[in-house]
Protein backbone atom coordinates (compact mmCIF):
# COMPACT_ATOMS: atom_id res chain seq x y z
CA UNK A 1 0.00 0.00 0.00
CA UNK A 2 1.61 3.18 -1.11
CA UNK A 3 0.54 6.46 0.45
CA UNK A 4 1.11 9.19 -2.10
CA UNK A 5 2.17 12.54 -0.71
CA UNK A 6 1.38 14.79 -3.66
CA UNK A 7 -2.30 15.32 -4.52
CA UNK A 8 -1.62 15.99 -8.22
CA UNK A 9 0.44 12.82 -8.53
CA UNK A 10 -2.37 10.84 -6.89
CA UNK A 11 -4.93 12.27 -9.34
CA UNK A 12 -2.77 11.65 -12.42
CA UNK A 13 -1.84 8.12 -11.47
CA UNK A 14 -5.36 7.13 -10.47
CA UNK A 15 -6.84 8.44 -13.74
CA UNK A 16 -4.13 6.56 -15.65
CA UNK A 17 -4.92 3.41 -13.68
CA UNK A 18 -8.60 3.73 -14.47
CA UNK A 19 -8.02 4.35 -18.18
CA UNK A 20 -5.73 1.31 -18.35
CA UNK A 21 -8.36 -1.00 -16.81
CA UNK A 22 -11.82 0.56 -16.40
CA UNK A 23 -13.48 -2.77 -15.66
CA UNK A 24 -11.65 -3.56 -12.44
CA UNK A 25 -10.54 -0.17 -11.14
CA UNK A 26 -12.45 1.13 -8.14
CA UNK A 27 -12.24 4.32 -6.13
CA UNK A 28 -12.88 3.99 -2.40
CA UNK A 29 -12.97 6.66 0.23
CA UNK A 30 -13.21 6.26 3.97
CA UNK A 31 -14.17 9.07 6.30
CA UNK A 32 -13.87 8.95 10.07
CA UNK A 33 -15.53 11.91 11.76
CA UNK A 34 -14.27 10.96 15.26
CA UNK A 35 -10.62 11.05 14.07
CA UNK A 36 -11.19 13.73 11.44
CA UNK A 37 -9.42 11.67 8.78
CA UNK A 38 -10.07 10.97 5.14
CA UNK A 39 -8.41 8.16 3.20
CA UNK A 40 -8.75 7.75 -0.56
CA UNK A 41 -7.82 4.55 -2.37
CA UNK A 42 -7.75 3.71 -6.07
CA UNK A 43 -6.97 0.14 -7.01
CA UNK A 44 -7.29 -2.23 -9.94
CA UNK A 45 -6.63 -5.27 -7.74
CA UNK A 46 -3.01 -5.31 -8.92
CA UNK A 47 -1.77 -1.89 -7.96
CA UNK A 48 -3.06 0.26 -5.11
CA UNK A 49 -2.72 4.01 -4.68
CA UNK A 50 -3.69 5.63 -1.41
CA UNK A 51 -3.94 9.17 -0.15
CA UNK A 52 -4.69 10.20 3.42
CA UNK A 53 -5.42 13.59 4.84
CA UNK A 54 -6.94 15.51 7.70
CA UNK A 55 -7.14 18.88 5.91
CA UNK A 56 -10.37 20.51 4.83
CA UNK A 57 -8.73 21.93 1.69
CA UNK A 58 -7.97 18.38 0.51
CA UNK A 59 -11.66 17.57 0.89
CA UNK A 60 -12.46 20.31 -1.62
CA UNK A 61 -9.91 18.86 -4.04
CA UNK A 62 -11.46 15.44 -3.44
CA UNK A 63 -14.81 16.77 -4.66
CA UNK A 64 -13.20 17.63 -8.00
CA UNK A 65 -11.72 14.13 -8.16
CA UNK A 66 -15.18 12.72 -7.42
CA UNK A 67 -16.55 14.65 -10.39
CA UNK A 68 -13.77 13.32 -12.59
CA UNK A 69 -14.45 9.73 -11.56
CA UNK A 70 -18.21 10.07 -11.92
CA UNK A 71 -17.76 11.36 -15.46
CA UNK A 72 -15.23 8.66 -16.36
CA UNK A 73 -17.29 5.85 -14.91
CA UNK A 74 -20.69 6.89 -16.11
CA UNK A 75 -19.68 7.95 -19.59
CA UNK A 76 -16.64 5.83 -20.25
CA UNK A 77 -12.84 6.08 -20.05
CA UNK A 78 -12.60 7.92 -23.37
CA UNK A 79 -14.36 11.02 -22.09
CA UNK A 80 -12.44 14.24 -22.51
CA UNK A 81 -11.74 15.42 -18.97
CA UNK A 82 -11.54 19.07 -19.98
CA UNK A 83 -15.34 18.82 -20.18
CA UNK A 84 -15.42 18.47 -16.41
CA UNK A 85 -13.53 21.73 -15.99
CA UNK A 86 -15.57 23.26 -18.79
CA UNK A 87 -18.79 22.53 -16.91
CA UNK A 88 -17.50 24.33 -13.83
CA UNK A 89 -16.76 27.37 -15.97
CA UNK A 90 -20.24 27.19 -17.47
CA UNK A 91 -21.73 27.24 -13.99
CA UNK A 92 -19.81 30.37 -13.04
CA UNK A 93 -20.60 32.34 -16.22
CA UNK A 94 -24.35 32.92 -15.68
CA UNK A 95 -23.59 34.35 -12.23
CA UNK A 96 -21.50 37.10 -13.81
CA UNK A 97 -24.26 37.91 -16.31
CA UNK A 98 -26.70 38.32 -13.44
CA UNK A 99 -24.50 40.91 -11.77
CA UNK A 100 -24.25 42.84 -15.01
CA UNK A 101 -28.02 43.05 -15.47
CA UNK A 102 -28.63 44.36 -11.97
CA UNK A 103 -26.46 47.38 -12.69
Amino acid at each position, binding site marked *: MVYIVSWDEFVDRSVQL*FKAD*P*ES*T*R*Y*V*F*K*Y*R*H*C*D*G*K*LVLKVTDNKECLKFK*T*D*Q*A*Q*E*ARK*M*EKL*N*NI*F*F*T*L*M*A*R*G*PDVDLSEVNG*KEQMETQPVKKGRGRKQ
Partner: protein
Amino acid sequence: MHRPPNKFSPPGGFRRADHQIPYLLCDSREKKSLQCLRICKEYSSEVLLQLDPFLNELTSMFEKSKEKGSVWVTLKRSSLKSKLQKRKLSSAGESIEYRCLIRATDAKKTISTSVGAKDHQRFQASYATILKAHMTALKKRERKDRKKSTEAEKKQGTSTTTKPKKL
Protein backbone atom coordinates in the same frame (compact mmCIF):
# COMPACT_ATOMS: atom_id res chain seq x y z
CA MET B 1 -7.06 -37.85 0.49
CA HIS B 2 -5.18 -36.75 3.60
CA ARG B 3 -1.43 -37.08 3.22
CA PRO B 4 0.37 -38.91 6.02
CA PRO B 5 2.45 -36.49 8.13
CA ASN B 6 6.22 -36.62 7.59
CA LYS B 7 9.15 -34.46 8.60
CA PHE B 8 8.69 -32.19 5.56
CA SER B 9 5.00 -31.43 6.09
CA PRO B 10 3.87 -28.47 8.25
CA PRO B 11 3.25 -29.39 11.90
CA GLY B 12 -0.47 -28.54 11.84
CA GLY B 13 -1.07 -30.53 8.68
CA PHE B 14 -1.95 -29.24 5.23
CA ARG B 15 -4.93 -26.86 5.12
CA ARG B 16 -6.89 -26.47 1.93
CA ALA B 17 -9.06 -23.45 1.08
CA ASP B 18 -12.53 -23.68 2.61
CA HIS B 19 -14.37 -23.69 -0.70
CA GLN B 20 -12.43 -26.74 -1.90
CA ILE B 21 -13.39 -28.94 1.03
CA PRO B 22 -16.86 -30.46 1.00
CA TYR B 23 -18.69 -29.42 4.15
CA LEU B 24 -19.05 -32.95 5.53
CA LEU B 25 -15.35 -33.76 5.28
CA CYS B 26 -13.94 -30.72 7.07
CA ASP B 27 -13.17 -30.74 10.77
CA SER B 28 -15.13 -28.89 13.47
CA ARG B 29 -12.92 -25.78 13.32
CA GLU B 30 -13.44 -25.40 9.59
CA LYS B 31 -17.18 -26.05 9.98
CA LYS B 32 -17.42 -23.17 12.46
CA SER B 33 -15.57 -20.81 10.13
CA LEU B 34 -17.84 -21.79 7.22
CA GLN B 35 -20.89 -21.21 9.42
CA CYS B 36 -19.54 -17.78 10.37
CA LEU B 37 -19.06 -16.93 6.69
CA ARG B 38 -22.66 -17.90 5.94
CA ILE B 39 -23.97 -15.79 8.81
CA CYS B 40 -21.82 -12.84 7.71
CA LYS B 41 -23.15 -13.12 4.17
CA GLU B 42 -26.73 -13.09 5.44
CA TYR B 43 -26.13 -9.99 7.53
CA SER B 44 -24.09 -8.08 4.97
CA SER B 45 -26.64 -8.21 2.17
CA GLU B 46 -26.43 -5.20 -0.04
CA VAL B 47 -29.49 -3.08 -0.68
CA LEU B 48 -29.83 -1.60 -4.17
CA LEU B 49 -31.68 1.70 -4.02
CA GLN B 50 -32.81 4.48 -6.31
CA LEU B 51 -30.78 7.69 -6.36
CA ASP B 52 -32.75 9.81 -3.90
CA PRO B 53 -33.33 7.13 -1.24
CA PHE B 54 -29.62 6.28 -1.53
CA LEU B 55 -28.70 9.92 -0.81
CA ASN B 56 -31.05 9.99 2.18
CA GLU B 57 -29.57 6.78 3.59
CA LEU B 58 -26.05 8.08 2.99
CA THR B 59 -26.89 11.23 4.96
CA SER B 60 -28.22 9.18 7.87
CA MET B 61 -25.07 6.98 7.77
CA PHE B 62 -22.86 10.04 8.10
CA GLU B 63 -24.97 11.32 10.98
CA LYS B 64 -24.89 8.00 12.82
CA SER B 65 -21.12 7.66 12.58
CA LYS B 66 -20.30 11.10 13.97
CA GLU B 67 -19.36 9.84 17.44
CA LYS B 68 -17.43 6.80 16.29
CA GLY B 69 -17.11 4.65 13.22
CA SER B 70 -16.30 5.21 9.57
CA VAL B 71 -18.20 5.61 6.36
CA TRP B 72 -16.77 3.92 3.25
CA VAL B 73 -17.94 4.93 -0.21
CA THR B 74 -16.84 2.94 -3.27
CA LEU B 75 -17.22 4.02 -6.88
CA LYS B 76 -16.85 1.48 -9.65
CA ARG B 77 -17.73 1.24 -13.30
CA SER B 78 -20.06 -1.68 -13.92
CA SER B 79 -22.61 -2.83 -16.43
CA LEU B 80 -24.48 -4.75 -13.68
CA LYS B 81 -24.60 -7.77 -15.96
CA SER B 82 -23.12 -11.21 -15.62
CA LYS B 83 -20.36 -12.54 -17.88
CA LEU B 84 -22.88 -14.66 -19.81
CA GLN B 85 -25.08 -11.66 -20.54
CA LYS B 86 -22.05 -9.64 -21.61
CA ARG B 87 -20.91 -12.37 -24.00
CA LYS B 88 -24.40 -12.60 -25.50
CA LEU B 89 -24.58 -8.85 -26.00
CA SER B 90 -21.12 -8.59 -27.54
CA SER B 91 -21.78 -11.53 -29.86
CA ALA B 92 -25.08 -9.95 -30.92
CA GLY B 93 -23.15 -6.78 -31.73
CA GLU B 94 -24.95 -4.61 -29.17
CA SER B 95 -23.08 -2.12 -27.04
CA ILE B 96 -23.02 -2.79 -23.30
CA GLU B 97 -24.35 0.10 -21.28
CA TYR B 98 -22.06 0.90 -18.38
CA ARG B 99 -23.14 2.59 -15.21
CA CYS B 100 -21.32 3.94 -12.21
CA LEU B 101 -21.96 1.69 -9.22
CA ILE B 102 -21.78 3.49 -5.90
CA ARG B 103 -21.68 1.57 -2.62
CA ALA B 104 -21.73 3.04 0.86
CA THR B 105 -21.26 1.19 4.11
CA ASP B 106 -20.82 1.93 7.77
CA ALA B 107 -19.74 -1.61 8.65
CA LYS B 108 -23.29 -2.43 9.79
CA LYS B 109 -25.22 -2.13 6.60
CA THR B 110 -24.42 -1.58 2.95
CA ILE B 111 -26.43 0.44 0.48
CA SER B 112 -25.80 0.87 -3.19
CA THR B 113 -27.08 2.59 -6.26
CA SER B 114 -26.12 2.84 -9.89
CA VAL B 115 -25.88 6.05 -11.86
CA GLY B 116 -26.10 6.27 -15.61
CA ALA B 117 -24.63 8.86 -17.93
CA LYS B 118 -27.83 10.96 -17.86
CA ASP B 119 -28.22 11.16 -14.07
CA HIS B 120 -24.62 11.52 -13.07
CA GLN B 121 -24.48 15.30 -13.05
CA ARG B 122 -27.53 15.70 -10.85
CA PHE B 123 -26.28 12.97 -8.51
CA GLN B 124 -22.80 14.51 -8.45
CA ALA B 125 -24.18 17.82 -7.23
CA SER B 126 -26.29 16.32 -4.43
CA TYR B 127 -23.48 13.96 -3.43
CA ALA B 128 -21.01 16.85 -3.20
CA THR B 129 -23.48 18.80 -1.01
CA ILE B 130 -23.82 15.88 1.40
CA LEU B 131 -20.06 15.43 1.67
CA LYS B 132 -19.45 19.14 2.27
CA ALA B 133 -22.13 19.21 4.95
CA HIS B 134 -20.75 16.22 6.86
CA MET B 135 -16.99 16.28 6.47
CA THR B 136 -16.63 19.04 9.02
CA ALA B 137 -14.14 17.37 11.35
CA LEU B 138 -11.19 17.98 9.03
CA LYS B 139 -8.65 20.62 10.03
CA LYS B 140 -8.85 23.97 8.36
CA ARG B 141 -5.76 25.93 7.39
CA GLU B 142 -4.59 28.00 10.35
CA ARG B 143 -4.38 31.45 8.85
CA LYS B 144 -2.76 32.91 11.98
CA ASP B 145 0.28 30.68 11.51
CA ARG B 146 0.40 31.62 7.85
CA LYS B 147 0.34 35.32 8.68
CA LYS B 148 3.09 34.90 11.26
CA SER B 149 5.27 32.98 8.82
CA THR B 150 4.75 35.57 6.06
CA GLU B 151 5.52 38.42 8.48
CA ALA B 152 8.68 36.68 9.59
CA GLU B 153 9.70 36.26 5.96
CA LYS B 154 9.02 39.93 5.25
CA LYS B 155 11.14 40.99 8.21
CA GLN B 156 14.00 38.83 7.02
CA GLY B 157 13.58 40.21 3.51
CA THR B 158 13.66 43.88 4.65
CA SER B 159 16.72 43.35 6.89
CA THR B 160 18.74 41.90 3.98
CA THR B 161 17.67 44.64 1.54
CA THR B 162 18.44 47.61 3.84
CA LYS B 163 22.15 46.76 4.16
CA PRO B 164 23.06 47.23 0.48
CA LYS B 165 21.08 50.51 0.40
CA LYS B 166 23.17 51.97 3.21
CA LEU B 167 26.31 51.10 1.37
